[in-house]
């Protein structure tokens, strides 16, 4: 679960990391009032849970309250990567002398957490990582041993922090580590970590992502979740325990197991189709889960056809079939549905679906071909053999 910048900063501040004075506003009048109260130039920052906010124009500076109000009007209601900006953080603008990057995340390959510090903070840290990785100092953390100050200092030396700020950096790194552990975080990041013109150290931006698997024991942050933060269909899916991601195509996909669903998407695109979504019903899905899956996929107005691809292990094909029948009893499906059932209780599942007006396929490949052809007949009846509707970057193949 991702936290908003203002939420992450509240947490940092609670753990004694200096943050700029700031307040959250939901309309431009409030922004005016906050800027007037601060009596200084302010930064107005969109609070949306995606990266690249600055480059999308979601962060603006203003010299006075009037200016702040008009800037806020530009940002509020803006669409950033599909999410509408509903609130902004208004902060005192910082005088920046130097920008660092400091963060902790998990390194899959090392199978450990890693703390990172770089003197090249700011928006282009990814480019730094790519072209000059030696400019990012890294420290892998042993989960079973406490973190010692000398270890943190080794990072600080590696990142050329001015000596007069060493003590501040050690304290902030220590706080980040405590937050990372205490919140079951998969990411805690300050970028930029600013050394101001006056020589103090302060968090310019903050990002925290909490491990979803640990939310059951993180009641303090799970309350931060807001309805507006997600695509409505993705939200409905999550409430049903389904993993759903909306894509731009027109063929709805339902399958079991992330790897199989991804491969089904790949197969459909290789046959010239365009997947409308990723939907994994998970292992051992019962009929009610499958019913919910079909309801969600068919409620996407772009969907012109649906492909259900199940290889039963713990998941039983008869449970899947019953879920489909239950969904169809109250849904009026207006597009073709191709299903492929293999594995546990395959025969029972096929028998149940045999009575409905659906199209069986013997393999994933056949099913993918079938649904792509059927959707093409519906959407472009004149030219069935037209070019693929989905634009797959050539370098992928």
């Amino acid at each position: 679960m991702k936290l908003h910048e203002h939420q992450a900063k509240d947490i940092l501040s609670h753990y004694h990391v200096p943050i700029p004075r700031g307040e959250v506003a939901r309309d431009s009048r409030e922004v005016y009032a906050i800027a007037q109260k601060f009596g200084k130039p302010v930064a107005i920052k969109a609070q949306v849970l995606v990266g690249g906010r600055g480059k999308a124009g979601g962060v603006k500076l203003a010299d006075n309250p009037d200016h702040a109000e008009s800037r806020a009007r530009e940002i509020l209601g803006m669409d950033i990567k599909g999410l509408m900006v509903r609130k902004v953080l208004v902060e005192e603008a910082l005088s920046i002398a130097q920008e660092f990057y400091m963060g902790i995340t998990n390194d899959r390959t090392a199978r450990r957490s890693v703390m990172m510090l770089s003197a090249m903070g700011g928006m282009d840290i990814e480019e730094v990582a790519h072209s000059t990785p030696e400019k990012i100092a890294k420290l892998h953390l042993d989960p079973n041993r406490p973190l010692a100050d000398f270890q943190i200092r080794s990072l600080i030396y590696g990142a050329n922090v001015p000596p007069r700020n060493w003590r501040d950096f050690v304290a902030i790194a220590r706080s980040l580590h405590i937050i990372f552990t205490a919140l079951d975080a998969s990411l805690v990041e300050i970028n930029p970590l600013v050394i101001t013109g006056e020589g103090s150290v302060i968090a310019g931006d903050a990002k925290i992502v909490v491990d979803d698997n640990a939310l059951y024991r993180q009641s303090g942050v799970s309350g931060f979740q807001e309805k507006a933060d997600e695509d409505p269909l993705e939200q409905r899916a999550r409430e049903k325990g389904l993993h759903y991601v909306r894509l731009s195509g027109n063929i709805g996909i339902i399958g079991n197991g992330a790897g199989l669903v991804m491969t089904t998407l790949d197969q459909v695109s290789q046959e010239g189709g365009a997947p409308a979504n990723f939907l994994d019903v998970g292992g051992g899905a019962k009929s009610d889960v499958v019913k919910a899956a079909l309801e969600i996929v068919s409620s996407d107005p772009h969907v012109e056809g649906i492909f259900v691809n199940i290889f039963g292990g713990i998941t039983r094909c008869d449970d899947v079939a019953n879920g489909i029948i239950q969904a169809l009893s109250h849904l009026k499906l207006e597009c073709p549905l191709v299903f492929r059932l293999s594995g546990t209780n395959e025969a029972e599942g096929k028998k149940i679906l045999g009575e409905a007006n659906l199209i069986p396929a013997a393999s994933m490949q056949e099913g993918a071909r079938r649904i792509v052809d059927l959707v093409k007949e519906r959407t472009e009846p004149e030219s069935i053999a037209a070019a693929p509707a989905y634009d797959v970057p050539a370098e992928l193949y």
Partner: protein
Amino acid sequence: MAILVNRETRVVVQGITGKEGEFHTGQMLQYGTKVVAGVTPGKGGTTALGVPVYNTVKEAVAKGGANASVIFVPAPFAADAVLEAVDAGIKVIACITEGIPVHDMLKAVQAARENGVYLIGPNCPGIVTAGETKLGIMPGHIFSQGEVGLISRSGTLTYEVVNDLTLAGLGQTTCVGIGGDPIIGCTFTDILKLFVQDPQTKAVVLIGEIGGTDEQDAARFVRESQLPVVAFFAGRVAPEGKTMGHAGAIVGGKGETVAAKIEAFKQLGIPVADTIYEIKIHLWEVLNKRRAGALR
């Protein structure tokens, strides 16, 4: 032969009295797995499907002679179950449980590595040595004995591939599902090292996916070891995640995409199948090459 487990392996099921644990214990027994003990704290002294249940893994080792474990314990307690198995001296652990907090796994994986334990998973389908034994949830009927090893990060996709191989007459030695979580016990390379030493395994199928860069490490190892490998990757058109922060990009970088993984394998001359149905075609080729080499 094969790797990790065989028909002699004596298995303890941690979480045997739970719904999943009990169901899959039944399936494992049916496949021929020697399930010698179960562990559920508080239910010691009872039996499940005729298997004696103990309170601790230590007892399962002392009284049941267990030397491998499969874990079906619910997520909040599963990492502790791994630590208990490691402490009891078990050297092969398959952790099936999905949804374990990552911070718990960081500690459990560390303990496994420090003690020379092969921890498979978590969030994995387990291990099958075809015709001999299975630890986990893979459907037994799709396997057939042969000379192909398989390592995969995925569950159902593995069944799909195994099924296709079996239908094509390409039997298997051992199939290992290493799990889909960010922090896992054994990596591709850890398992490849075992396959290299197994005379029965003549070729290996490696099924990777988007995320992480373990596949690139594996590719370098394959190249060095000269092990015949065919790779397949899921997630060519996977959606770009709405990621936040830069840390992920700094750690994994552009290497996390399927395109980068395919490129890494092709550059080293390792065949990559474009669809799962092409895996068998590449396998026939590498197996033929290997046989021709052996004849020379």
